[in-house]
């Protein structure tokens, strides 16, 4: 319901036919709560340009359907701007900026800023008007600010509000003289808590929509930028700042998130991970080089933030004192850094998980005898992994290439338990000249899944065809499959 409809005398809860009668030119749109929620979540994410602590109202009040009901006064977004207002020229300037931008997107928004969530919620919905859309409650003044408002401003259940109305409690200040012992039996514990929260007597925490990065640097642009070079420079600056902060804290980034707030109100996010914690601005900048072209600046980017969403402890490294004495050590240190950096560069372009190192798995089922773990474990792990591989059973009887899934072949063997005399794989007939086997492999009995226990035992043969190529074939329940190739 927009302002024009309100002026026409419509109010929430009115039957559609009556509304149509009041305003013949009424345009109606079906209510789509999920789309609304999505839009609100997107708006909350956009508000992260002011502060990382943002949450859509609905999520905050899960279980208590406040917005959407007749008492809501519209959906809202909560922002915790503690310590952020000075970046935007003060609290009032921040609110006005926010309100003006939202108006630019086509939203009718009212904003209020107060010490408590409850007070700000009430002020935004019941004190701010279309003419004065921004209200700032001075610190400690919420009692006076709330006094003239109706009780429903306290985020109460509809039936509580009705009851208060019947009892003649029309303003919040009417509730002030009542103590909890009087209120609780009549209006419920929630009403008491809401009043206390709004007045700041009880703490209320805001759970942010997305957990904010512990390390964040932010770049505001005087006017929207869209030139890739400018964006690149901004990223360099952000990284330099962030890496400085990380160095002071003795930590390195494992995951970075670059968020670009575009002038049309949408967001672009780039995430990159590193195989080892790093705070080397140069290295991280190189990783972004691969990713930046994917950032679509649209009509321009107004704000960029770079957060280290995942960090790990990273000890200070000894820097070489002089160039002369330190070249060998420096070279070694550079070399030691090289592999993780290479892994990061490859993963940056080919996707996370594209670079992996094989790890041994103790299983006699060929497909499960190894696992691929993300590359970049530390050296201690590597030596242990090396020892593990020594225990691999019969490595020489295993093929160099294992087909992703065994391919059925038409095979002919002279006697039932004999190796095949010939087989046809991918439409080509191979005469078997030499063969070794069988090696019987059963499913793992300790696995309970249906497929595993039902799988017939496999009899593996190594065979060599007339040309000298070697294959790994197996027979399971009378059918032949080709599973691998030897060198």
């Amino acid at each position: 319901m927009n302002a024009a409809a309100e002026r026409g005398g419509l109010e929430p809860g009115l039957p559609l036919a009556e509304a149509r009668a009041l305003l013949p030119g009424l345009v109606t749109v079906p209510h789509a709560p999920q789309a609304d929620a999505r839009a609100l979540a997107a708006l909350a994410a956009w508000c992260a340009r002011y502060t990382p602590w943002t949450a859509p109202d609905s999520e905050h009040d899960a279980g208590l359907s406040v917005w959407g009901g007749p008492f809501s006064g519209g959906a809202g977004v909560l922002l915790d701007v503690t310590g952020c207002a000075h970046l935007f020229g003060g609290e009032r300037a921040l609110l006005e900026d926010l309100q003006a931008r939202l108006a630019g997107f086509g939203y009718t928004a009212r904003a209020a800023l107060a010490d408590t969530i409850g007070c700000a919620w009430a002020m935004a919905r019941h004190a701010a008007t279309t003419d004065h859309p921004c209200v700032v409650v001075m610190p400690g003044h919420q009692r006076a600010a709330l006094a003239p408002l109706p009780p429903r401003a306290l985020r109460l259940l509809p039936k509580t509000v009705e009851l208060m109305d019947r009892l003649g409690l029309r303003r919040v200040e009417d509730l002030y003289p009542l103590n909890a012992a009087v209120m609780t039996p009549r209006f419920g514990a929630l009403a008491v808590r809401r009043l206390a929260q709004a007045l700041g007597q009880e703490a209320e925490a805001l759970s942010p929509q997305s957990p904010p990065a512990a390390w964040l640097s932010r770049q505001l642009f005087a006017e929207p930028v869209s030139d890739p070079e400018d964006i690149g420079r901004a990223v360099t600056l952000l990284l330099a700042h962030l890496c400085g902060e990380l160095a002071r804290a003795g930590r390195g980034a494992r995951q970075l998130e670059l968020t670009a707030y575009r002038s049309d109100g949408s967001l672009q996010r780039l995430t990159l991970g590193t195989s080892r914690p790093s705070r080397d601005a140069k290295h991280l900048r190189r990783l972004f080089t691969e990713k930046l072209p994917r950032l679509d600046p649209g009509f321009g980017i107004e704000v960029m933030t770079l957060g280290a969403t995942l960090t790990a402890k990273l000890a200070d490294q000894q820097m070489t004192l002089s160039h002369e004495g330190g070249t060998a050590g420096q070279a070694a240190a550079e070399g030691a850094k090289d592999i993780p950096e290479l892994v990061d560069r490859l993963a940056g372009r080919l996707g996370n998980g594209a670079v992996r190192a094989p790890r041994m798995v103790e299983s006699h089922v060929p497909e499960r005898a190894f696992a691929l773990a993300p590359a970049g474990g530390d050296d201690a792990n590597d030596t242990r992994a090396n020892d593990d591989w020594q225990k691999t059973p019969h490595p020489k009887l295993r093929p160099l290439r294992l087909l992703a899934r065994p391919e059925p072949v038409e095979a002919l063997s002279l006697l039932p338990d004999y190796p095949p005399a010939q087989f046809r794989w991918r439409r080509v007939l191979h005469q078997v000249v030499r063969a070794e086997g069988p090696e019987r492999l059963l499913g793992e009995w300790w696995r309970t899944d249906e497929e595993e226990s039902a799988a017939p035992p496999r009899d593996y043969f190594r065979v060599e065809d007339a040309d000298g190529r070697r294959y790994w074939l197996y027979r399971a329940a009378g059918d032949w499959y080709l599973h691998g190739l030897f060198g």
Partner: protein
Amino acid sequence: MSLLFREKGRVFSAAAPVAGRAAALPESGARIPPGEGLFSAEAGPIDGLTALRGPGGLAAIREQVRRIERGGLSGRARPVAPLGLAALDAALPGGGLPLGALHEIEGERAEWDDGVTLGFCLALLSRLERAVPGGAPILWISRQGDLYPPALAGQGLAPARFLLVRARSDAEVLWAMEEGLRCRRLCAVVGEVEGLDRLAGRRLQLAAEASLGAQGDQGKGVTAFALHRRFRPLRQGRAASAALSRWRVTAAQSQDDLGETFIGRPRWRLDLLRCRGAAPGSWQVEWDDAACGFSLASALCDRPLDAQPRREPRGPEGAGGELVGFRHAV
């Protein structure tokens, strides 16, 4: 007499007018007819006669040629990994497989030979490990990802050394190879490619050479292997290659001392199709993974002639003896 091919702009990068043609080099004192002489990097064409009479004479030209044969690497000898088989090592420039260079390995047919080419590549890698110990990581880039790590231990290579990279296209494989060649901590980079055109080959070869570092650097460089995997028949012949060497591996029937029906050590026919600074050749070898060495296969001596494989264009296996190094006469 051996034949040298010079590539346009490659060997003499400083000299403008080098034509892509062949020049015959006399073994001893033969006259080079005027106008057919060599070109030097600094001074353009050298007249055959003046070069012979000038300071150093033939020795100077030989030195020049040796430099060409080393693959344009000025000043230092290219490090090599001896393959441990005299016949092979003698045929390769510098007495072994050159390090810090790109080598191509292809099979005879498409997917049937994937195991064979891989076997040869792993054999070369384990020889490389002999020459450059230290267990540096090996970057393995592939689109299929069907390398089976548990089998690597049987080839004398620790699977934990391998970094397996899964790429989505040939272009990504080549890109990752080039990135890998820039990282000097690696031992080798292996890329499984469908095709390698001249430009890509040249980029990789240059990157591999750059990994050797400057003069006086003791680094052994990063060696690149391009493992050809063709999934459709190649229509328009084979592209010219900028790699330092190109090998074709063909499987051959193995023999086992224990009896007819057992599978012996893998046996391959190796064709060195081209190698900068060496003549093409062909050998029949057996790979012993336990000893980590090649040996010449005693060539099919106890088999009747009619059972011999059909391919016989220039193979060495005609004669029944031990031998088998082979050079193209010019």
